């Protein structure tokens, strides 16, 4: 069906199609319309899920963990402060190998109180063992949420997946959306370690120094295996529904001398900047990173690279810039832009590319020494 929808609505539509058994959510700000829309589906009987309105995000994730441990498909959505409040439980979900799917609307963290777009919330969950994917359009948020269930629940993965969409710029922006009848695209979940009352087992018991590292290694092993699963799932999605996705979304990169790398909606804004630069004869391209975990191999050899970070690690630098530097053994021009919803236009991005100084970091809007 073709409609015009917000990113929130798109995620809710995808969840309706994926039919989780249990959805748990806490509804206060900075929560979004995703869980409101799903609550409406459940109350109107168009989605036969058990909806648990819990008392906090910590409890929302705990409820998903409990439900998922029985082998049930689970979903929740959150944003910024709410995601951070889940932090203890997000670690537990990954360590317990539970394929929870969560949408996170990327918003800045307080103080000052700010509910606009920023990626630092999800970046602070980077090392929990969750797969993380960042979307750039309403359609992509829908498609990626559907794929997230396939990937999380795949026997080679069995790790939770976080689908990220930029606060307001995607969550509340209306764009065309084509929904699909997903049929058997998402196979039934068979959790090999599901709770079985006939065979009582203690989950997550005391694990000594002689054992603990083995389970950590198994998370990493599954992260590495997830690369193939993501590739297969994206290929199968394209085969069935005609829309192609990769680990990155590359725009006019093939012959580019300079490539701008970013996450989320900044990457779509960058495409407009690329067209403008190309019309001036500047060979530039945009590479929008979709999957931050597992981190993809990026084809950046021989290009000058500008990385825009809508996040920051204080005392260190832009997180995406440094991950690219470390993984690709290259130096980059690091631009910190868009924090707390700071407006970044395609003209601004074109300026970042034109004025790039490899090896340096600059903060958009900040004059050094002033």
């Amino acid at each position, binding site marked *: 069906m073709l409609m015009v929808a917000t990113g929130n609505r798109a995620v809710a539509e995808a969840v309706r199609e994926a039919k989780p058994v249990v959805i748990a959510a806490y509804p206060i700000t900075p929560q979004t319309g995703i869980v409101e829309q799903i609550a409406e589906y459940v109350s109107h009987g168009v989605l036969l899920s058990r909806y648990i309105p819990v008392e906090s995000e910590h409890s929302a994730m705990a409820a998903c963990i409990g439900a998922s441990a029985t082998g049930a498909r689970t979903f929740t959505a959150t944003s910024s402060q709410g995601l951070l409040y889940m932090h203890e439980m997000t670690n537990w979900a990954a360590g317990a*190998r539970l394929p929870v799917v969560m949408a996170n609307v990327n918003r800045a963290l307080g103080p000052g109180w700010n509910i606009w777009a920023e990626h630092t919330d999800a970046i602070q969950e980077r090392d929990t063992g969750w797969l993380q994917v960042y979307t750039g359009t309403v359609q992509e948020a829908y498609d990626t949420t559907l794929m997230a269930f396939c990937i999380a629940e795949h026997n080679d993965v069995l790790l939770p997946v976080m689908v990220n969409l930029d606060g307001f710029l995607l969550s509340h922006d209306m764009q065309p959306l084509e929904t699909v009848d997903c049929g058997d695209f998402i196979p039934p979940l068979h959790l090999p*370690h599901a709770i079985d009352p006939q065979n009582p*087992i203690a989950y997550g018991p005391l694990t000594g120094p002689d054992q603990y590292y083995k*389970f950590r290694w*198994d998370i990493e092993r*599954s992260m590495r295996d997830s690369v193939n699963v993501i590739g297969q799932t994206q290929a199968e999605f394209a085969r069935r529904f005609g829309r192609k996705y990769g680990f990155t979304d590359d725009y006019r990169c093939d012959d580019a001398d300079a490539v701008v790398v970013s996450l989320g909606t900044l990457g779509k804004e960058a495409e407009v900047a690329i067209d403008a630069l190309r019309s001036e004869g500047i060979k530039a391209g945009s590479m929008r990173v979709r999957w931050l975990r597992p981190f993809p191999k990026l084809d950046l050899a021989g290009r000058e690279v500008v990385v825009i970070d809508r996040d920051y690690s204080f005392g260190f630098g832009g997180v995406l810039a440094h991950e690219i530097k470390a993984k690709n053994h290259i130096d980059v021009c690091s631009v910190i832009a868009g924090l707390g919803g700071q407006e970044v236009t395609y003209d601004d991005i074109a300026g970042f590319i034109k004025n790039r100084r490899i090896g340096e970091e600059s903060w958009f809007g900040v004059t050094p020494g002033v």
Partner: protein
Amino acid sequence: MSGRARLALSKPTTGAAGRTGSWRVFRPVIDTEKCNQCGLCQMYCPDAAIDEELNVDLNFCKGCGICANECPKKAIEMVREET
């Protein structure tokens, strides 16, 4: 689970933490005249130390008194252990 150990799991075994009954200060004593065998004490016992016939396993009963608190007939008295 077959082959690969993805997460820490353990099979519950009797007395894995030792004979916790030795911690007990108060012992539950059931008055069978008052008891209507509703089974709430068994359900609430955090140590599964009460069986379906409502016998208390004093090897593992820590004497927490939850059974006595939950008993709707006040049929369980917590009696101080002799030292």
